């Protein structure tokens, strides 16, 4: 009878095929224990021996350059308009007193009890620079110490800033506290997720008719589709901050590197992960600061029209119509076709909402000039413009023949229910037009009398 181990092996191997391995070859002698790992990574142990995690501090001095600006320029001030980004966060009294930037690296993305945040990074500004404190697990025994340390930092924070933390980092950490049956300090955490405003500012310039609440997958898809409007932190730091990473560890490799570290005890393999996390934190602080600066300065400070549209979206969502109109108006003179279209459409919608009907109609007319090109209303945007103009001319301007012209432009491409709507509109316009004609013939021109 074969022994248990060899029977197990035959089953396990049959399922996994040949074992996979990293191409990374350890160069240094492997670490003996957590203390050794800590020493080799320039950190120290936190917690009792045997159940400690490793804390590693890194400081960037104020005059260190990160991208086009210096670290000191990224400090957040209470006067900055955080409320434009997140009304609740902006209303927190003294939010700027201790802003902690927060980002985790995990053993997987699937969630569940077996997904662990093996590296937790926190960053904050202090006298003289930006400090990042990272907590690394050398093994599962250190997690309690990690959670306690993090809870202390959270307790002191007046604001915790994350990038996609609302759906990933924070729920994941809540799972870990629940796992250890400890009360989670995140219940009333003053939390601000920078991802949604970043998407409004720098995300794809898309038509207003589509929903503004999109999930991460949408975001990632659109990132792939249009690299100019990618909203991953690493692409923003390139386009917005002008910072380029060298030898960055790609995100998909991070769990495998950590597992390799657990198996071999070689700390060098996670050094790159630590660096990646540190850059994420500094860039998160810089991007947040830059965005706040931009929102404060207004559309004239933007480097490009695309950003002006984004800023317009931010103002619009925050309810600041005046500044939104200003931003969109500036962007309508953009060189890029899609940016101009988007700006004009948003402008038209906002103007109509502010009861500035003639200006709205003028914006829609410019949209049609841009996209209509005598092709009827072939694109969705042209359709929306023609429809808005048909409505405007029928009900506001009372120019029935102009209304009919726009309605007819809608006809060739209309399908489904919309087709019926167009037909109804045309019928109604025809009836009104013939009534008007008759009234004109009989000398009873009520419309003129109005």
């Amino acid at each position, binding site marked *: 009878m074969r022994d248990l181990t060899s029977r197990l092996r035959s089953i396990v191997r049959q399922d996994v095929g040949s074992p996979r391995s990293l191409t990374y070859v350890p160069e240094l002698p492997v670490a003996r224990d957590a203390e050794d790992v800590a020493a080799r990574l320039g950190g120290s142990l936190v917690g009792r021996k045997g159940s400690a995690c490793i804390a590693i501090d890194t400081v960037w001095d104020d005059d260190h350059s990160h991208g086009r600006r210096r670290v000191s320029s990224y400090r957040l001030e209470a006067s900055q308009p955080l409320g434009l980004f997140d009304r609740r966060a902006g209303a927190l009294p003294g939010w700027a007193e201790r802003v902690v930037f927060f980002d985790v690296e995990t053993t997987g993305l699937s969630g569940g009890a077996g997904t662990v945040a093996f590296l937790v990074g926190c960053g904050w500004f202090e006298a003289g620079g930006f400090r990042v404190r990272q907590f690394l697990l050398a093994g599962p025994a250190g997690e309690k110490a990690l959670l306690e340390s993090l809870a202390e930092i959270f307790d002191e924070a007046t604001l915790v800033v994350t990038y996609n933390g609302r759906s990933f980092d924070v729920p994941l950490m809540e799972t870990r506290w629940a*796992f250890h*049956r400890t009360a989670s300090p995140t219940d009333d955490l003053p939390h601000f997720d920078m991802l949604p405003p970043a998407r409004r500012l720098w995300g794809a310039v898309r038509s207003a008719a589509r929903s503004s609440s999109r999930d991460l997958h949408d975001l990632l898809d659109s990132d792939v589709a249009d690299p100019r409007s990618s909203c991953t932190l690493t692409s923003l730091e390139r386009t917005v901050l002008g910072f380029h990473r060298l030898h960055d560890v790609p995100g998909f490799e991070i769990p*495998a590197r950590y597992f390799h570290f657990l198996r071999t005890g070689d700390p060098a393999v996670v050094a790159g992960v630590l660096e990646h996390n540190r850059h994420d934190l500094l860039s998160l602080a810089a991007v947040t600061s830059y965005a706040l600066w931009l929102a404060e300065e207004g559309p004239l400070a933007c480097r490009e029209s695309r950003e002006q549209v984004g800023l317009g979206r931010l103002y619009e969502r925050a309810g600041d119509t005046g500044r939104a109109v200003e931003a969109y108006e500036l962007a309508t003179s953009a060189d890029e076709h899609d940016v101009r279209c988007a700006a004009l459409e948003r402008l038209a919608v906002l103007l109509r909402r502010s009861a500035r009907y003639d200006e709205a109609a003028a914006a829609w007319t410019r949209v049609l000039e841009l996209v209509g090109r005598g092709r009827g209303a072939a694109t969705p945007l042209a359709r929306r413009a023609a429809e808005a103009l048909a409505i405007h001319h029928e009900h506001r301007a009372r120019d029935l023949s102009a209304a009919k012209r726009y309605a007819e432009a809608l006809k060739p491409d209309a399908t489904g229910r919309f087709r019926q709507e167009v037909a109804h509109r045309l019928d109604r316009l025809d009836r009104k037009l013939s009534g008007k004609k008759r009234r004109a013939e009989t000398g009873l021109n009520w419309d003129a009398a109005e």
Partner: protein
Amino acid sequence: MASLPAPASDKDRSLQVALSRMLAEYEAAVREEAAPAVAEPPAPLRQDLHVTAVRRLAPAQAQYAPFPGGMDPRLEQALRARGLDQLYTHQAEAIEHVLAGRNVVVVTPTASGKTLCYNAPILQGIVQDPSTRALYLFPTKALAQDQLAELHQLAERIGGAGGGEIGVFTYDGDTPQDARRAIRGRAHVVLSNPDMVHSGILPHHPRWAKLFENLRFVVIDELHAYRGVFGSHLGNIMRRLRRVCRHYGSDPTFICSSATIANPRELAERLVGAPFELVEKSGAPRGEKFFLFVNPPVVNAELGIRRSYLAETRRVAIEFLKRGLQLIVFAQSRLSTEILTTYLKDEFPAHPGGEDVIRGYRGGYLPLRRREIERGLRDGTVRCVVSTNALELGIDIGSLDASVMAGYPGTIAGTWQRAGRAGRRNGRSAAILVASSAPIDQFVVRHPDYFFGASPEHALINPDNLHILLDHVKCAAFELPFTSDEVFGTMNVQEILAVLAEEGFVQLVDGQWQWTQESYPANAVSLRSVTSDNFVVVDLTHGERVIGETDFTSGPSTLHEKAIYLVEGQLYQVERFDFDNRKAFVREVECDYYTNAITHTKVTILDTFATGLPESATIDDSGSRDIGALAAGEEMDPGQALGTRPSALGSPSVEPASAQGPVPSACFHGEVHVVSRVVGFKKIKFYTNENVGSGELDLPEQEMHTTSYWITIPPGMMAGLPYSPADRRDGILGLAHAMHNVAPLLLMCDRHDLGLSIDGLALEGASRVGGSRRSAERPELSAAPTVFLYDNYPGGIGLSEPLYSMHDELLARTRELIDGCPCKSGCPSCVGPEGASGPLAKAVASRLLQILTAAPAAA
């Protein structure tokens, strides 16, 4: 064709008339005297009775008990408001156990108020401490939905009586994502199924911390459903559940309900891993029930051929339908379900535009269709349902008048359960078993006392099947890191973890085995089979439409190209079978035949775990069962026919002992490699079962490692038989055929759960539908033929080991079957039909068994 009469107004009377007609027709005399609870069969017992047994199960009065002391007044008030002023004795007993914190398994017949046994103490627990949580497990989603309404009502009444709000929710694959969070927070009682606990709850236990911290009760309903693969999985899920509970500091009480099986307590204890109290005496009232065994008449005595049992079932069902009675017909397979549905629909066609009153029901139908049929049964619009065992479980289908079983369900427990699907508290009902010509059916129908007198079977599970165990160790490691001294079940989990570490699944750090994979292991493990794959059936007749699904193993044999696929009597032909994408494309057809696949199987021994000689055959002069004797068995093994074989026994071979005279056979238990392939199919005509054509197929092989029991007949014994080599071969085939039919009687399993092979080659599986079986080929046997009975699941589900230990009994029972069969020279009911088994198969098999089971005197 006939039109269906209106539902009977006096059901008792109509039922009596139907039964009398049946008995009168067959026996010309009805015995209806006031009989004892189990009456004698009509005498004289002729050799070939059509109705071989009539039993009257007397009605039983309700046995009541007062509410146990310590019951909360609010709960009592709610129960009284529902008209419950007292409890049945078994309910009171179960509730008392639970209130005292003891695990309990309640064995109850259908409609005996089992749900109150767990609902009452649990609701009481919640009323007294609103933080209390309970988890209910049902084997299917449908059963959970069934229970939700009742529990909800009771919870509301208690809430009305000042018991506070009690949250009751189902949580399964159909629960919308946005409702899940609310359920995790608000549910006092979560109704779920093992699959969801396995993949949705346990891996996310931190989100369920509130449930696990306060989990005081776990209910496992329909416990008997958890045998074989499913039970082996559940055993591991319970290990995981209790492990997570320990982590959160809870230790729930388990309440199980089970249909009658031999070992409810043992099964509960093995599944949960804790001691249980047993409550098995029902206090519920029971209506009068008649149980009849029907054996289709022999139409050809020489060949031992009986009238088709499906045709006979049809006749019996029509007797009831004609009289306006509502019934359920159980068939043995999906195919025979469809065939019977077709037959009965032909007899009672639906009015044009009207609703079908005859419906089919089986796994693989889409859930909506199933719910519609269940509803139809309850409200009476469906008059007859033809079902596989899918309706054996306690789905509420109301109280039917009769249950007709086409073929012996394979187990005593299963038969009682199917019989129990008909029955009313205060009225008459009937259960009819129509025997097929399969040996097991013939054995049962000719030995009614075996059925009525014996205890039902044992439910066997093997949570330590290595394939299953490994999967769950992975899941458990993901949920909570194992410590380096932790125990999980009975196997050495540390050794398992060490192997998983070699492949990078886990790593020992800080004295804990940490999960080191990005993946989420529970997603890759399906509980219903050893593999989670399946095939979907796409109908192309009116655009693309999915009409069913089939598990991976049976896909090739039922969905190959040109196969006829049936859904409720509608015939579809498979146009294209896309094995790689797991799809079969079908189109509606009209034809008068169905198809049956021909599968070739090859078995190779990988490893021998145990070797033994039957005690009775110990060689007298050697004095001990030493390795030499064992090696003799080994030496006689036909090595070339079995392929390479690792030298497992380790001992050098010894001279074959043939010189010592008659040599005992050797039986083995070990691991085998099974390769099977569908090579062709037969077209079989409806009603006549004529073979009207065939086709060849070229489909991929399916292979598995599993465990097997096998027996080798020594060459000396073979050579000593006074028959020609061809007759000897027939005898071995006949012996194997009979053994394969007796083994499921000893194990509580389906005949399908055991594969059969001789010398590593397959005997083509006999189809119960086809009636007659012809082996397409007659393989030459080796000098020392070996009969394999293997676990028909990858890794084995624990059937072959008990079979190995029951070797003596297996041979003795097989001998009883063959020698007790009234046929002359073999029939489908013992060694196989004469045309297929050879003229002397019965005689040779009988002689072989005589030698094999002989006392040492044979030496």
